[in-house]
């Protein structure tokens, strides 16, 4: 080992931070040097992550926290980097994808306004995400978590002047949304989750007395026992903790910010969707799973199962919900956005399933993380391609795209590869990871979840083919004007597409390795033992695995065909027209509208929270503040001046009355003497 692994972990996120500093410091030096300096530092970050990778096989954790805050009562909080298989995998994924996106950006933002800002926030974004995955305690992780949020705010709202060309949404009758609004929305929705997560962290801390992940793992029996004595505490903890990931990873019901987060420059979308931000939630849930698994199956606190139930249900619902919306979306990036949510739904579903039986922990973890890896790769590739496409066509609407397959051959090929990976066509990486989730949901006997996931496969195939067809296969006349993207943009997504194939080629082995590592780490090293046959578990499906390994892939292939075929007919071969079909059927029209209106979730949330706030915000002022104001700042002075005027009347100016006051006084004094003194 050349460098101490702890140092590697620190440097891993410090290098991009230095990159951010470069973005500011080198403004005056000149654009190219600045850009390459920033990219170089991102590369160094990636290098550090890569150097950590060999440690993964040891399946151990490295953690040497340093003192950070002293707390009242003699306690203190230390921070450090936690290096264990989970964080190494995530750090590598994040660093690698970020590097690809940053290289791509060099060309992409050449002519954009606000480049300093762009580079600065991109670097910080990467820094915070790396910090998030490498942090060894909840607060440090939360810091990264929040910084990711604020960076996304800045980057989504990159075009803050809201020029019309950067508007999102529409066309009529759908409303247009401005980038600054989208940024604010992303920030606010995720903040809502963050608040919940912070509540969860703090709540957890009050019982556990530690924030370090490792200590939480090690002392789980103690603090879980304390937690379980308060009825409802575990449920509350689960819900509070899950609030964060649900918002951050854009899961139902806090998912509506993501489609609009497309307002930023495309590399930003790529970063948000593939590498950072939305993956944070998945990572965090993965982090927590051992603890809750322990609580559910080993310590036997049934309340802890809430965590898994909520996770799995949210994942499946989101996967289905957003899959449907992706089928009708009209903007290219929005399709991809819905697809991201849908895929993240899968991951979350996989993670949720980890706790459904007493032995599925590592299976679930593996499924979720594997899908995270493969999704990261192909989704980054897709977004980068989309960036090129939008740049070339100058429109965000797929209906206005019509690209030449020939002159943009490489882009076309790479995008198809990535798309097929997304669809789950074997042997691309997406197939293997999705299969794991599907089979896990089947094995655990969660047939509703399984059905939802399976249907979503068909949806995925449909919208994937649809957007490819709309972009590249609109007509056969070749449009010669389109130019292939410059190599500096092409290479990153080319590599990603190749990687997608490569991972797919070794898919089963890859998945197994991950599972082994997790097994070795969580079970053998940390001691979250998995006892088979613990009370309440669903009967192990071990004996049925042999037919299933064949049946399930077949089933999902059938679903892909079901989804892809109509799309192929509509959009690629143009054998029939989807518009005609929809116009011909009232029900289909209604469904299309329903889906395009995003199941009315967005509009109802908007109506209640946003419009409601704007419309009724003055009510507070009018009905509470103003009366109070009136009472205190006018009422009391008026009362006093009224009293004062009343007292003023005592001063009549009539001498006889003045003398009568004296007499009155004497009389009162006499009475008081008589009553108080004489007896």
């Amino acid at each position, binding site marked *: 080992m050349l460098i101490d692994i702890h140092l590697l972990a620190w440097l891993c996120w410090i290098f991009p931070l230095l990159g951010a500093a470069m973005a500011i410091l080198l403004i005056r030096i000149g654009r190219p040097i600045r850009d390459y300096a920033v990219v170089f530092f991102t590369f160094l970050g990636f290098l550090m992550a890569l150097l950590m990778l060999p440690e993964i096989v040891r399946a151990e954790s490295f953690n040497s926290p340093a003192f950070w805050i002293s707390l009242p009562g003699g306690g203190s909080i230390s921070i450090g980097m936690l290096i264990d298989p989970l964080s190494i995998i995530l750090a590598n994924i994040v660093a690698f994808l970020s590097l690809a996106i940053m290289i791509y950006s060099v060309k992409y933002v050449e002519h954009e306004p606000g480049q300093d800002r762009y580079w600065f926030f991109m670097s910080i974004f990467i820094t915070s995400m790396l910090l998030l995955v490498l942090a060894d305690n909840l607060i440090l992780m939360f810091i990264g978590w929040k910084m990711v949020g604020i960076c996304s705010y800045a980057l989504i709202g990159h075009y803050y002047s809201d020029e019309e060309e950067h508007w999102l949404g529409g066309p009529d009758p759908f409303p247009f949304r401005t980038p600054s609004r989208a940024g604010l929305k992303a920030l606010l929705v995720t903040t809502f989750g963050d608040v919940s997560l912070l509540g969860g962290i703090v709540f957890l801390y009050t019982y556990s007395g530690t924030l370090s992940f490792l200590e939480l793992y090690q002392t789980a029996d103690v603090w879980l026992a304390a937690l379980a004595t308060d009825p409802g505490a575990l449920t509350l903890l689960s819900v509070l903790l899950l609030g964060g990931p649900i918002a951050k990873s854009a899961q139902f019901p806090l998912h509506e910010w993501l489609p609009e987060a497309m307002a930023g420059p495309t590399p930003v979308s790529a970063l948000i969707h593939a590498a950072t931000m939305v993956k944070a939630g998945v990572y965090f849930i993965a982090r927590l799973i051992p603890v809750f698994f322990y609580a559910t199956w080993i310590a036997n606190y049934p309340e802890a199962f809430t965590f898994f139930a909520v996770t799995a249900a949210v994942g499946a619902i989101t996967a289905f919900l957003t899959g449907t919306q992706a089928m009708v979306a009209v903007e290219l990036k929005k399709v991809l956005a819905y697809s991201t949510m849908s895929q993240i739904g899968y991951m979350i579903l996989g993670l949720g399933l980890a706790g459904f039986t007493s032995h599925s922990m590592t299976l679930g973890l593996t499924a979720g993380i594997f899908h995270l890896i493969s999704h990261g790769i192909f989704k980054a590739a897709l977004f980068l391609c989309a960036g090129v496409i939008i740049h070339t066509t100058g429109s965000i609407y797929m209906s206005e795209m019509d690209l030449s397959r020939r002159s943009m051959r490489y882009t076309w090929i790479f995008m198809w590869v990535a798309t097929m990976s997304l669809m789950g066509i074997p042997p691309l990486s997406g197939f293997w990871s999705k299969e794991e989730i599907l089979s896990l949901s089947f094995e655990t006997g969660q047939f509703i979840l399984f059905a939802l996931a399976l249907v979503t496969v068909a949806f995925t195939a449909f919208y994937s083919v649809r957007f490819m067809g709309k972009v590249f296969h609109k007509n056969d006349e070749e449009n010669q004007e389109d130019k292939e993207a410059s190599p500096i943009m092409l290479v990153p997504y080319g590599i990603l597409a190749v990687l997608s194939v490569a991972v797919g080629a070794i898919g089963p082995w890859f998945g197994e390795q991950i599972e082994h590592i997790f097994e070795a780490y969580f079970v053998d090293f940390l001691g979250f033992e998995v006892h088979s046959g613990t009370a309440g578990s669903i009967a192990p499906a071990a004996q049925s695995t042999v037919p299933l390994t064949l049946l399930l892939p077949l089933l999902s292939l059938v679903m892909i065909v079901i989804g892809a075929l109509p799309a192929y007919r509509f959009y690629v071969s143009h054998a029939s027209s989807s518009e005609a079909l929809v116009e011909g059927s009232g029900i289909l029209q209604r469904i299309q509208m329903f889906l395009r209106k995003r199941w009315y979730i967005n509009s109802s949330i908007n109506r209640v929270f946003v419009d409601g706030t704007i419309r009724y915000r003055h009510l507070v002022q009018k009905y509470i503040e103003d009366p109070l104001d009136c009472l205190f700042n006018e009422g009391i002075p008026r009362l006093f001046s009224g009293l*004062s005027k009343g007292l003023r009347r005592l001063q009549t100016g009539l*001498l006889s009355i*003045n003398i009568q*006051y004296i007499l009155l006084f004497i009389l009162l004094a006499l009475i008081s003497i008589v009553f108080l003194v004489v007896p």
Partner: protein
Amino acid sequence: MLTLPLDLLFLFAITTPLIGWLAQKVDLPRLSGVYATLGILLSAFTAFQLLLQTLGGVVPPTPTSGLFNAYFDLDIFGSFAMVIQIGLGIAASIFSIQYMRSESGSSLYYALLIGMIGGMVGVVTAADLFTLFVFWEMMCLTSYLLVAFKNEEPEPVEAGIKYLLMSSAGSATLLFGISLLYGMTGTLNFGGLATALGHATPGPWLYIALLFIFTGFGVKAAIVPLHTWLPDAHSAAPSPISAMLSGIVIETGLLAMVRVLFTALISLQTYWSMVFAVLAVITMTLGNMTALVQDDLKRMLAYSSIGHIGYMLAGLAAGTVVGLTGTILHILNHALMKGTAFLCAGAIIYRLGSRNLADMSGLARRMPKIAVAFSIAIFALIGLPGLNGFVSKLTLFVSVADVNLAWVGIAIILNSAISAGYYLRIVRVMIETESEPSENLREAPVSMWFPIWILAILIITFGIWPDLVFNIAERAALAILSMT
């Protein structure tokens, strides 16, 4: 021969009209003012020396032979009060040099002023009740005439006659009370009264005497509901006289009351302290509340004096060393604060010609010296710490809180807050943007702002370094309490 300051005061009171006559001959209109001021200064100097002597434990020589033998008794209480009275007199007198320049018969004015000071000095140094009464009447008489001094206007005259009638009724009541005390003991000497009545079980007549004496002094001290003459008299009098009346004359009523209460009527203390507590709250509340809506600057200040009398009464209600210290200290502080305030009002009226608050907007820019001093006085009156008013109010509060009358203390503080409402109006009006009446104002002449600033600096000094006077006030209080 009385005591030295008194002698000097009488001498100058008598000679000032002569000088005034002379001044008319040689056409030096300010001469009588300067002469009178010198006289007061001289007597202040002697009074100060007496104070130092008494503080040093030396009993100053009171006349041992002659007509007034033993009717004066100089203790720390008396000499301290004397210094306050003469000291404020100096300021008023210097101020008057310019202020009363155009008045006819200004030498008479100075004679009356000196006479009033003499009367007050007599009241606080008297050793028996009747001597006290004689000087009391002297003080009253001169003040009636001073209030009505500007007899070419109807208001001073009206205020004067009302003041005279009410105050004389009070004096008569006082005399009646004194006669009852005399009837009970056969002596009017404070020492004699203290030995005769101090430790006896109180009979009904003592209560009646208390009632009459209290009413008599109360009219002068403007205790509600005996206060009704005050707003008229104080607002109608010439401003230096208002300063004197508010600053020390009404307080002299309290000082005299202290003398009697803590000697002759000490056995009734539990009774009268309760009555005082109630009256203190009523007085301060009414004074401050009524001041809220006044538009006449001097009338507002006059009502505020009633409020401050309420604060002082609280200390008497406590009746402890701390309480008395607080009262004495507040009398000093109030003399400084209200003296400054009324003199500032006088300077403003001198230039502006109006007493209406609304006409004074924008004044601060035209008369900054006056405005700043006025603001200092006002903030001291509100009771902001760092200025002298705070220390005495604090002492008063502590004293009442110590004897389980915390509600009186709370009333003091709430009243201070209420009083900020009208005091601040003055400051606010002064620093507002300019209005027409104040456009062509000039700064007040030196002889006006100089005494004002002396007082203002004392306000700050005693605020920052209260022990300068705190000590004396406490010893004065001990002197009173050691009389029985």
